[in-house]
């Protein structure tokens, strides 16, 4: 079989997206005059934290605030020697990693089930799941504590992991993604001989990059920065997470601000690195999830 020249002309390759992307130019606009000062305002707390972290205790209390005479790097070392900072960092990393991975696995599979599988009561179960989004965490704090206690997990890292293994928001996010995917793709995969799980793994999973990145970032931020639940579930300093540990630098009568700021800065480094590495995905994730 041969293709007529007329058809060949019609099916000539289209220009690639990257080429089109490259032709765009960003030009300064009047908005920049407003946005630049605003971004400086937003940066101020971060800069203040940075300045305090390299100041002495006396310099940090000076009013009006001023730049330190010399950069006091020792604060960063002192954080590690005067507190179990390494433990906190490790605990937070373990909890965050486990929760992110479990959310990616469980929310995507549950979202797929709600979007594609027909089972009795799926609509009702999904509505009940969504309803849990309306309940503030403070309301379920005590029942959650009692459940976790019954599992014997109080003051263990498991207490921070188990209640967060899967989230209603994550299931909702992934379900919406699957609903937006054309079912033809899965059906083609099944006709081509793949099992349902094979379709999920070989066809859908590679397409889930953006929603999975969104879910991973939002889950990581939530767990890394969580304070209230660790405060209730964890008591011993060795099992504390970062945010809980930072609070130990605050005393009833006196706070070592340079140490606290140095620790806070270090605690935020992974978040800052994550933000810089995936800035585009991060912004898109906030935009697509409609939350902040």
């Amino acid at each position: 079989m041969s293709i007529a020249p007329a058809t060949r002309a019609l099916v000539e390759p289209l220009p690639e997206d990257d080429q089109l992307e490259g032709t765009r130019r960003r030009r300064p606009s009047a908005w920049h005059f407003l946005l630049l000062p605003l971004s400086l305002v937003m940066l101020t707390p971060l800069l203040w934290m940075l300045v305090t972290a390299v100041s002495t205790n006396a310099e940090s209390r000076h009013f009006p605030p001023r730049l330190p005479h010399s950069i006091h790097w020792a604060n960063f070392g002192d954080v590690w020697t005067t507190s179990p900072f390494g433990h906190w960092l490790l605990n937070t990393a373990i909890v965050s990693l486990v929760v992110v991975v479990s959310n990616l696995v469980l929310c995507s599979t549950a979202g797929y089930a709600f979007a594609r599988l027909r089972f009795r009561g799926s609509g009702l179960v999904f509505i009940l799941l969504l309803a849990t989004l309306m309940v503030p965490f403070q309301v379920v704090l005590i029942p959650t504590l009692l459940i976790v206690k019954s599992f014997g997990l109080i003051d263990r890292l498991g207490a921070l992991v188990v209640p967060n293994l899967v989230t209603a928001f994550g299931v909702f996010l992934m379900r919406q993604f699957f609903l937006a995917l054309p079912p033809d793709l899965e059906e083609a995969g099944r006709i081509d001989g793949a099992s349902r799980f094979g379709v999920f793994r070989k066809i859908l999973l590679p397409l889930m990059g953006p929603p999975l990145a969104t879910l991973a970032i939002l889950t990581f931020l939530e767990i890394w920065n969580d304070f209230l639940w660790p405060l209730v579930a964890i008591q011993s300093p060795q099992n504390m997470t970062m945010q809980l540990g930072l609070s130990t630098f605050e005393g009833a009568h006196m706070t070592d601000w340079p140490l606290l700021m140095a620790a806070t800065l270090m605690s935020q480094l992974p978040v800052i690195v994550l933000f810089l590495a995936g800035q585009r995905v991060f912004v898109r994730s906030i935009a697509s999830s409609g939350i902040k």
Partner: protein
Amino acid sequence: MAPIVLDGLRKVYPGKPPVVALEALDLTIDDGELVAIVGPSGCGKSTVLRCVAGLEKLSAGRVIIGNREVQDLPPGKRDIAMVFQTYALYPHLTVYKNLAFPLKERHVPRQTLDAQVRRVAEMLELTPLLRRRPGQLSGGQRQRVAMGRALVREPLAFLLDEPLSNLDAKLRTQMRNEIAAIHRRLRITSIYVTHDQVEAMTLGERIVILHEGRLQQAGPPAEVYENPANLFVAGFIGTPSMNMLTGRTDRGVLTAGALRLLAPGAPDGSVVVGIRPEGLSVDPGDAGPALDVVVSHVEALGNENLIYAQVTGAEPDATPMILRAPRRVLPRSDERLRVTVDTSQLLLFDKATELRIPLSGPVVPVDDHQAAG
């Protein structure tokens, strides 16, 4: 390659009330035959395809491909291939990997897989595109990749679900010819679903007309066109549609408007007279029974004109007749025309049952018959 037998296919979608998508469908598709299923939206034609593919669970009936009953097998075990309306190409895979996917899932050895992919790519002129992703292809190229993915593992049957409907008119014609050429070459048993009757008539060795989940007629395109089984098929097949006039038969004499014809074998009662646009002539030189019409409007198509006209004395809201006329005949709106009817092309349908009325002899004007007598 294998014949496909659909035996009493029934598909009901649950709901309040349940929707009957297919009802008692019996159809046999011979080995190597290409059958086109055609019908209006919602008639159940895609459901047939999905039931054969295993994408829908049957409410009742059997699907036999070759010598195997497959209605309880998952889609991947039925040894069929399907081309989707949206092509359903895997967007993250290159053309090569898209073509290789069905073979990989069947654990075909690497060398055989590579040879088969390259053979199909060569046949469909996809070789230069093998490293591209679907997003970098034009509509025609994507369509060709979808065809290739279906052909690559030489399935028993080939299912095509409106594969050309996303293409522009010119490319659609081109691809239609290519599909016909592929079928002539490979002779794979194929079911082609379309809402476009031109596609069905030109591609199908037989066409199957569905309406509201029920089989209306199945047969070669020319036979369905010339001898529609009922009013629905008569109105659906043919562009422009068949013209319909209401009338009555009484002791073998048909009266419809100004027409008075002998319809041998027609039972007494209300009837619908069907006549295709080519059975009507506006040439004043033609002899035969005639109707007076008033022109509503004219569509000039370049090679011919389609004249929409109202039969004089018909109800004001009656569907206008459509006449084909040479391009030199270009009447104005509201102009009166005399239209000659070729009685050999008249078809009669029972108004109540909508079924075709078989006649025992040709329809002739009453006057001619009396003169002959």
